[in-house]
């Protein structure tokens, strides 16, 4: 054991990217099984709504109904992939496969593990919202070139909802309790955040609350980008989406510290 042989510690960024790469690699091996449903779901949704609901609804918030819900589809893909990945996925990695035990027996610590994981989840959110936007563009519901920025909103959405998933993974006592998280937290967040109808249609009190929900501004901005119809909301929405996911992330990572380190 000669001291001169001691290797330098990898930097925070290097460790975070090693974790990111781990998830990427593992995910790659199951790429199609994992990606297919995420892409298929919005497609089915658009077809069903397109054939059924859209003609009955007519216009919504001054645009045709498919145009209204299209950006929300991209965000929903980001929400689902990240919320599942970081709740069920984290739970399995933690309790069943013991992957985190392996990671943190290296210089990597809990912070690096979960920041790496959230960034990976963000990447998935980016990718899936990109795929959804590309698919939907064939349906003529994307009206502005600004839509190329939607996947970046998808990234931040996924970081935020991945963080919520981590809170769930920290809190559940067993796997069944994730049902509460999905049906009790994620589904209402999706329904009340302007996905299928404008939040303004809700009673005033509810609508104020809805605008404070994490998903509202992500969908709001996405809709501005796919339609090219920007509103003054932009000045709140942009700082919100740049900051809030990372605040949630910081709390989530901190809470995983408490869960994992015993």
């Amino acid at each position, binding site marked *: 054991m000669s001291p001169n*042989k*001691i*290797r330098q510690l*990898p930097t925070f960024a290097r*460790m975070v990217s090693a974790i990111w790469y781990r998830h990427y690699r*593992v995910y790659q091996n199951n790429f199609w099984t994992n990606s297919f449903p995420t892409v298929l779901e919005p497609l089915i949704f658009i077809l069903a709504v397109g054939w059924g609901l859209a003609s009955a609804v007519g216009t919504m918030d001054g645009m045709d109904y498919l145009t209204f819900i299209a950006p929300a589809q991209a965000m929903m893909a980001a929400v689902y992939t990240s919320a599942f990945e970081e709740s069920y996925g984290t739970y399995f990695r933690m309790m069943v496969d*013991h992957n985190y035990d392996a990671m943190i027996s*290296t*210089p*990597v610590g809990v912070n690096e593990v979960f920041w790496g994981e959230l960034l990976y989840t963000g990447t998935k959110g980016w990718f899936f919202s990109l795929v959804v936007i590309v698919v939907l563009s064939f349906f003529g519901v994307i009206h502005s070139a600004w839509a190329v920025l939607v996947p970046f909103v998808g990234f931040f959405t996924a970081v935020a909802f991945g963080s919520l998933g981590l809170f769930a993974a920290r809190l559940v006592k067993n796997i069944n309790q994730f049902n509460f998280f999905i049906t009790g937290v994620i589904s209402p967040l999706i329904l009340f955040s302007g996905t299928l109808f404008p939040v303004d249609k809700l009673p005033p009190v509810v609508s104020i609350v809805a605008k404070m929900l994490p998903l509202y501004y992500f969908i709001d901005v996405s809709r501005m980008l796919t339609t090219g119809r920007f509103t003054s909301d932009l000045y709140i929405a942009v700082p919100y989406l740049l900051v809030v996911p990372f605040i949630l992330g910081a709390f989530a990572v901190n809470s995983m510290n408490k869960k994992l380190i015993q």
Partner: protein
Amino acid sequence: MPTDSLIEARQLVKNYDDFRAVDGVDFHVRPGECFGFLGPNGAGKSTLMKMIYCFSPRGGGELSIFGLDPDKKASEIKNRLGVVAQTDNLDEDITVTQNLQIYSGYFGFSRKQIQPKIDELLAFMSLESKAHAGIRQLSGGMKRRLVIARALLNDPDLLILDEPTTGLDPQVRHLIWAKLRELKTQGVTILLTTHYMEEAQELCDRLLVLDKGKVLSLGRPEELVKNNLHPYVLELPVAKKSEIQIPPSIQLETHGDKLFLFSDTPSELEKIALPFQGQFRIRTTGLEDLFLKLTGRDLHESE
């Protein structure tokens, strides 16, 4: 804190809520030695190891590894450790080589840089033919060897192995022992837990016997046996107890359905055994006897 010990523990404590899993443990590990933890299930061996590999924070006492405090310098310490946890924790969905590549990334190695090391370790653990196999295609013994190979990617100064050979066939066990001895000659310090007395005997320079979080005994294997037991033992079925006269010079122990009589001379034992032709065995005492003596009674009472 300058020290010539690689690991130094003083009055080390670990609590899980109200339960004290490690209760005032003292020991130190010298560079280059193989140090073993022995103890029954639940003794606190894994808990002790987790504190050393900076997985669990300690609940009290002092601990230093490489002269560093695990509460403050966990990454620095872990950078120089190889860890084989009690439960295998490979990435099941990717190949053997990918597992090693990814794990080396956590130490900051690039894939290109580490590839020669991966080839070397796969050969070292006789896993070359499995380089591109999925983890689910490996047997338990192969997985264990892979976890050990993975722990060697960073050329650790201290290798920590929590029951490395539990559940493996004798062939694989001997292979792993040979590899660990080879590492020792290269100057790697080894910390090991095992339930196999033969393994402790084969590999360990010093042993710490632990039960209920407390140290029962610490020393070289031969010394421990010599200091605690007479050199010869007679084994008899426990039913014979009423039929024999036991001189005061003899130490008596009962474990399971067997009676163990310890003495300084084999002739004394032969005399007692004479009426029981074919039902007894006289042999020299070993670690197993020591282990049973130190921990056996407690185990039976608590279970």
